[in-house]
């Protein structure tokens, strides 16, 4: 479980996150939704420690990140898996080397064990046999899948995904979403997914947090979203014709 308590963050006096308090449960896919520029990426980067919040606490399974020493921080980070918006694969390394990277850096596994683990992860994301390709030879969806394989190679407890299906066609996007939710259950991780894609919300939104102007505006499940009376959330959700149709069908 990850708990945020009164997180504030501003850039050059411009407030981006304003007193965010929320908890994300284990074994679930938690969605953070909001418009482009609403602060989703900044929030995620604060949670993982790539950005430092101006104030507030972040607790991982009850342990406060800001009170950890260097070693403890390092240890908790090794339990993180993160999926970046552009996949962020290492260009100069092959698919296999990308997935193996953390094992090379932090474990004393033999090359046989590493190979097995890498193949297991690649198989899990349906990319068996692509070991020798380089990132520049992969499609967008394949890159995302390699990034997922890389994220889960050391059995993370926490998985963070920033717009995992941006730039993908709807079918590939759904496949990535499904993969994330399946893996979350399989490994009992605490997963946080940033998205502005309503398909994802409907597909995997077990716990949805809506942020708007740096504040938490609404929280609930995907079923509750369609019933919402919250005007800002309505504007966001019912911006597309498709969802408006969906609501009509629902009302009948």
């Amino acid at each position, binding site marked *: 479980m990850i708990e945020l308590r009164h997180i504030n963050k501003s850039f050059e006096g411009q407030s981006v996150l304003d007193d965010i308090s929320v908890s994300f449960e284990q074994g679930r896919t938690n969605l953070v939704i909001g418009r482009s520029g609403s602060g989703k990426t900044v929030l995620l*980067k604060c949670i*993982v420690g*790539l950005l430092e919040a101006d104030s507030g606490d972040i607790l991982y399974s009850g342990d406060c990140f800001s009170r950890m020493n260097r070693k403890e921080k*390092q*240890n908790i*980070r*090794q339990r*993180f898996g*993160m999926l*970046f*918006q*552009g996949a*962020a*694969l*290492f*260009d100069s390394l092959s698919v296999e080397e990308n997935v193996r*990277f*953390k094992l*090379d*850096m*932090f474990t004393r596994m033999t090359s046989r064990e590493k190979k097995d683990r890498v193949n297991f992860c690649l198989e899990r994301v349906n990319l068996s046999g692509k070991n020798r390709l380089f990132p520049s030879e992969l499609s967008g969806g394949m890159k995302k899948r390699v990034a997922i394989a890389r994220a889960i190679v050391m059995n993370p407890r926490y998985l963070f995904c920033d717009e995992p299906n941006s730039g993908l066609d709807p079918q590939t996007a759904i496949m990535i979403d499904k993969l994330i939710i399946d893996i979350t259950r399989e490994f009992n991780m605490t997963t946080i997914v940033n998205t502005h894609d309503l398909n994802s919300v409907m597909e995997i939104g077990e716990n949805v947090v809506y942020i708007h102007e740096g504040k938490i505006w609404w929280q609930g499940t995907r079923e509750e979203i369609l019933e919402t009376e919250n005007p800002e959330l309505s504007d966001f959700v019912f911006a597309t014709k498709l969802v408006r149709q969906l609501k009509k069908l629902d009302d009948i």
Partner: protein
Amino acid sequence: MTLLQHIGRYTILIKRSLSRPESPRVYYRRLIREMEVLGINSTGIVAIISFFMGAVITIQTAYNTESPLFPAYLIGLAARDSILLEFSSTIVALILAGKVGSNIASEIGTMRVTEQIDALEIMGVNSAAYLILPKIVALMIIAPFLSVLSMAVGIVGGWIAGTTVGVVSTPDYIYGIQYAFIPYYITYSLIKSVVFAFIITTVSSYHGYYTRGGALEVGRSSTLAVVHSSVVILLFNLILTQLMLA
């Protein structure tokens, strides 16, 4: 940002990159690769530039000293000393600043804007040490060899050009390059090349590491890396010359 802020941030980055590797094996592999990319791949350009440099120095010296009072072997001597003292370290460093500096800044800059550096940090890897340390060490190891290569090729270039144009005879040239030879000049030159290697890799890495934005900014960082490395090299050339030859 002011110059002082840049220097502060640079110092912190370099300090962070000079820390103990998480996995010595991985660093060793990267070191070998960087020695190849930064060093071995630069031998061609260093050799070409040095050849023509040696040639031009010899011919110019000859034409500027056309006097019966001036013994012909002094052409070889003058060419040798300019090559050893200045050209093989400083000019080669400036060339490397252009080639290696832009290469480093654009590589690290691209990794920054595509979030690859964030990906390293998330994994708990010290990204500064992982990316920068192997480059610093690699170029510092290779630079003296490039320097020696440059000296040799430069002197051969001078000989070929001098004899071809007919301004100096082979015996005179060879006598000249051996005459009043001071071995310390080579030490001096090699020390300079190591310092310059450190400057090129660290300044360029700094510009790459703190790139913010997209492809356009990566290009800008790359340009700044070359310009700033070159200026710092010239500054340190002055300081080192004063310290070591005075």
